[in-house]
């Protein structure tokens, strides 16, 4: 495997070709905040919180580290005035939906985000897509999907599938950063198939995601 040397936050870092900047950083214990990233899932590049500054051949650009591949001699800065500002505003935008998400609260502290900067929005889903992608890529059930586009985009459980598949899984509840996945499921159940869930199984109290290092959503406990 070709070894690639790059610089992250002033530190010389070795990485394998094909790795992302995020992976290279994590491997060195360098923290980059993430929200929509999950190591079992394909890169999504939706939340943009993992954005870093990259200098390559004299050009500075802003890229999402969970997707951007390592390259020889690039210089990565995981924090800068601009990077911090981006993260601050993104967190503020997300807090208009989910002001009580522990993950967002932690990031808000780090980047000085004001949770009340933007008007509160009705839905507390931040459309990170973890539930949708987990159900699709890991469980391959597609019980929950995205519907609509643009500002109207939301997640939705598909009653016909959820009725059959969700009662003994519910793994997405734990990876959801806002507990909306569980709420949406329960609502779907109440409306579409009340009482039809397997009698014996109680809704598992969704364990709050356990985060050892605040780098990525904790691995799912089954």
């Amino acid at each position, binding site marked *: 495997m070709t070894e690639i040397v790059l610089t992250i936050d002033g530190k010389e870092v070795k990485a394998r070709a094909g790795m992302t900047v995020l992976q290279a950083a994590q491997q060195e214990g360098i923290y980059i905040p993430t929200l929509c990233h999950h190591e079992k899932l394909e*890169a*999504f*590049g*939706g*939340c*943009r*919180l993992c*954005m870093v500054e990259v200098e390559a051949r004299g050009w500075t650009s*802003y*890229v*999402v580290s969970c*997707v*951007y*591949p390592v390259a020889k001699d690039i210089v990565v800065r995981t924090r800068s005035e*601009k990077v911090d*500002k*981006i993260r601050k*505003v*993104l967190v503020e*935008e*997300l807090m*208009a939906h989910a002001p009580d998400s522990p993950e967002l609260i932690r990031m808000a502290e780090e980047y000085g985000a004001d949770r009340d*900067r*933007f*008007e509160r*929005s009705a839905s507390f889903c*931040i*459309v990170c*897509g973890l539930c949708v992608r987990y159900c699709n890529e890991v469980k391959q059930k597609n019980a929950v999907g*995205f519907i*609509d*586009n*643009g*500002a*109207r*985009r939301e997640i939705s459980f598909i009653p016909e599938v959820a009725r059959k598949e969700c009662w003994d899984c519910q793994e997405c509840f734990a990876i959801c950063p806002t507990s909306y996945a569980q709420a949406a499921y329960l609502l779907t159940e109440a409306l579409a198939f009340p009482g039809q869930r397997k009698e014996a199984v109680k809704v598992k109290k969704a364990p709050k995601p356990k985060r050892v290092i605040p780098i990525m959503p904790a691995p799912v406990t089954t």
Partner: protein
Amino acid sequence: MPKLQSAAELEKFRAELLAKRDPAKPCIAVCAGAACDGMDSAAVAAAFLAEAATQKLDGKLEIRTTGCHGYCEKGPNVVVTPGDICYFEVQPTDVPEIIAATLKGEVVERLVYKDPATGAKAVHMSEVPFYKHQTRLLIGDNPKIDPMRIDDYFAVGGYAGLVKALTTMTPEQVLAEVKKANLRGRGGGGFPAGSKWETTRNAPEKTKYVIVNGHEGESAAFMDRAMLTGNPHKILEGLIIGAYAIGAQKGFMYTRHDMPLLEKHVRQALAQATEYGLLGENILGSGFNFECELHFDVGIFVSGESSALMRSIEGNAPEPRPKYIRTSVNGIWDKPSNLNNVETWANVPQIISKGAEWFTSIGSEKSKGTKLISLSGNVVNSGIVEVPMGTPLRTLVFDIGGGVRDGKTLKAIHFGGAMGGSIPADLIDAPLDFDGMSKLGAPIGAGGLLLMDEDTDMIEVARYLMDFLVNESCGKCVPCREGMQQMLQILTRLTEGQGRKGDLELLEDLIEVTGVASLCALGKTSGDPLKSMFRYFKPEYESRIVSSAGGSDNK
């Protein structure tokens, strides 16, 4: 019709076709383009056919329904050849008179163009102010072509570029010619088409695709659909030539799902091209194989973005890919895929048949050829216009567009739809040029030009464009989805007189972050209209805050 096996067979077929056509025989071309159709040009066409049948005029006169002529404002449009006599706002009741005059070689004076100021009449297309300042290399054939008949395209010299490319040039030579012509993409970015072709050509993967971007989602842009509906073979010819240069075996036409006439014409064009052997195996005996498939968009603006479009062709939701790769190398199904706009492809046949030197003699220093512009808004003459790059906006707006409607004064010119920008009237002498207009903050984008008069509320314009984007984005990434919603809320408040102190600073923060952090160009440029307005119309925004924070003139 048996397949044309060689270039010679095609030229022989063309010669026979032309020999059968008498140039002196009058032809009445009725526009069936979208605008004229909206004014029931179908009834006019039907009336012509009925009258011709009743009078048994079969041998004496031809009636043709065509795509958009350009002067949409004055539809239903009718053009009579020889002479290119233009009749405007034609009603079915005018039909017998037009036929009678045409048969006698006369003109129906009351239906020709009359100058609104002087009353001076203009009979021929070359005298009508709207047309006479134009250089109609691409759209000029529309009145001569019934898009359902490939013969009409042959008759205007169609597929001569393809013949030349396949029989006298190597793919490398075709590529070199397009590079030399400095043809720049007409879909918004102005990226050199030749370099892009070369990237796809040089990509190691053997399977390659070429694609026509006919989505045309930009608000106030309507020329691509006019080209595709009115002259589909021109785009197809460009695509086949491009595929030959690039080494692609398959092409896709990606276009609007909501235009039945466009679909009908493109389907027919593909079927006829296949029947004549211009698509399929061993095209004109050259050994080159190429097929083309028609695909429809999903109706949201972001489907026009290159990676989203390619995902859509693959059968997925039109979401831009987060990957830092180029679609020209990793496109449809990860194969090298070259995407160009309708108008970019339409330029290719003439570059090959007339040469790069001819092409570069038209236009400005860095932007060559002509550009199709959709004129709309508070303009006297709305329609589709084609002028050489470098033409001053003044010519577009006043000489061609006839100026501002209802005698009002011009306030601003907006280019490029929701990802474009507005410039004030005093920049009217700026030349139409990719780089120059970008520097001014109003990149030409696809070419939708919107005129705004003195009564225009610039905040409402920004709100309207933002509202469009909020509904037409994919909603995948946070800065675009959330940032635009927040901008929209603030703008809405401003238009309602509820502006607060700090709103403009908040907008500036949102423009900055959305601009740098968004995944695709939709989000990245969503703040551009606002940015241009902050550059040129800031006092208008500021006054709104003052007045709404307790001033007396709240509306």
